[in-house]
């Protein structure tokens, strides 16, 4: 089982990174875990924000924009202690077929 005290080193928004975060969101139950998840989602939101601001291919942008929004929503859910809901939201994005386009 994933260890919720571990912090994912978020340096991209690849599907592997997102799935790692989803796995940890699913087992996060305490204040400390929520803080670490918030930090990871902050990093995803930051990286996608920079990509949107400074541009990549326009075909990718719709997916990146959606992930940027999902990361924000998931972040706010974690802040409310709703890590499971955040996990579902991010997992739905991963399963939505957009990850190939943005990786």
């Amino acid at each position, binding site marked *: 089982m994933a260890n919720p005290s571990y912090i994912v080193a*978020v340096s991209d928004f690849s599907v592997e990174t997102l799935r790692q975060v989803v796995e940890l969101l699913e087992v996060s139950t305490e204040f400390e875990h929520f803080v*670490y998840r918030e930090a990871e989602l902050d990093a995803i939101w930051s990286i996608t924000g920079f990509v949107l601001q400074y541009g990549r291919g326009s075909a990718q942008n719709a997916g990146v924009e959606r992930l940027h929004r999902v990361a924000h929503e998931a972040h706010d859910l974690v802040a409310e202690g709703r890590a499971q809901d955040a996990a579902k939201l991010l997992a739905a994005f991963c399963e939505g077929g957009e990850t190939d386009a943005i990786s």
Partner: protein
Amino acid sequence: MLSREENALLTETDAGTPMGTYFRRYWFPALLVSELPTPDCPPVRVRLLGEDLIAFRDSSGRVGLLDEFCAHRRASLFWGRNEDCGLRCIYHGWKYDAEGVCVDMPNEPPEYAFENKVRITAYPTREYGGLIWAYMGPGDHVPELPKLEWARVPETHRYISKRFQETNYLQAVEGGIDSSHSNFLHATIEAFRQTPAYVEKVKNSTNLRAKYHLLDKAPHFTVKKTDYGLLIAVRRNAESDSYYWRLTQFLLPAYSMIPYQKGLSIHGHCWIPRDDHTCWVWTISWNPEAPLSTEDWNSIHNETFVHAKVDPMTFRPIRNAANNYLIDREKQRTTSMSGIQSFASQDQAMQEGMGPSVDRTRERLGTSDTAIIAMRRLLLQEVRALQQGHEPVAAHHGDLYWVRSASTILKRDVGFEEGCRDLTEAEV
């Protein structure tokens, strides 16, 4: 990232705001005892949580902390005469005691005087640990003074400085618990570059910070929620089989300590809102076992560490935004990352440069900001709990503050909670 609403909730501290109400549940530092040295000494202006106040020490030695303005025509009591157990407004002679009761109204004929019915706001004070503390909350929730180690050591073992900072208090707190900035902002160029000469120089140092802190620029953070606030543990690589651990506490509502290495002195901070755009930074250095050393005093006088020289009247640092903190660009090119003398001024330059109250909806955090995220979440939880009628536990349990920061080397298979258990209890 914070929403605009959360940012406002955390940073606004005037009377009636949620965070202002929260701060008003605690005793907090208001003045140095030395600002009111003797009975009937001149009164002192002090602005706290958006309120303009006047402090004075009456003829019996009692400290009053009053609304700055006379109830009559709103003249400032700063100009008042401190005489015969009260502060007399020099405009029309109304006089107030330390509890804010008007005890004389000489400009009215005796039959029209109503002095005993006139009051101005007065807040309770305590003298403790070299400071005058204020409580600005409701009378039915008077808290306990925090059992902070630095407040309990003899005067010879402690030095406290106070400085005025032109930012919201939260920016300053965030700087204080952000361990990763010191690898850059407070570093020398040779440490930042890890030159062979630097590595050789620190190789045999007994100062763990000098030896390990700057050699691992990307530390791992762990946070633990506690009854007093947060325990923040930061792990850096030491030797191949060991880690260098630095443990610091964030103590509610706004204290922290720099990780302590046994045998050296300890340093800590407290940040109190002056208003939403300025704060008071209290910096304390103490040695639990002995008077401060010559080395400690040299560091204080030469501003080589956490204290900065200030104007003795305004407490505005000598190095400030108006003179670009006296940055020495040549020194920055050749010696230090910042070119600014003193860690305190380096911190202040960064924090004030962000603007008086940073827009946290525009920041881009990463995993090295874990302690900052945790502190904000904790404060938001505390404020919301108080809004729902739950009083802050720490405010009423002063003994929770009897803790100490720590730094040590542990084998890689030893967790910090186990390895540092004995190090994080205060002794005095």
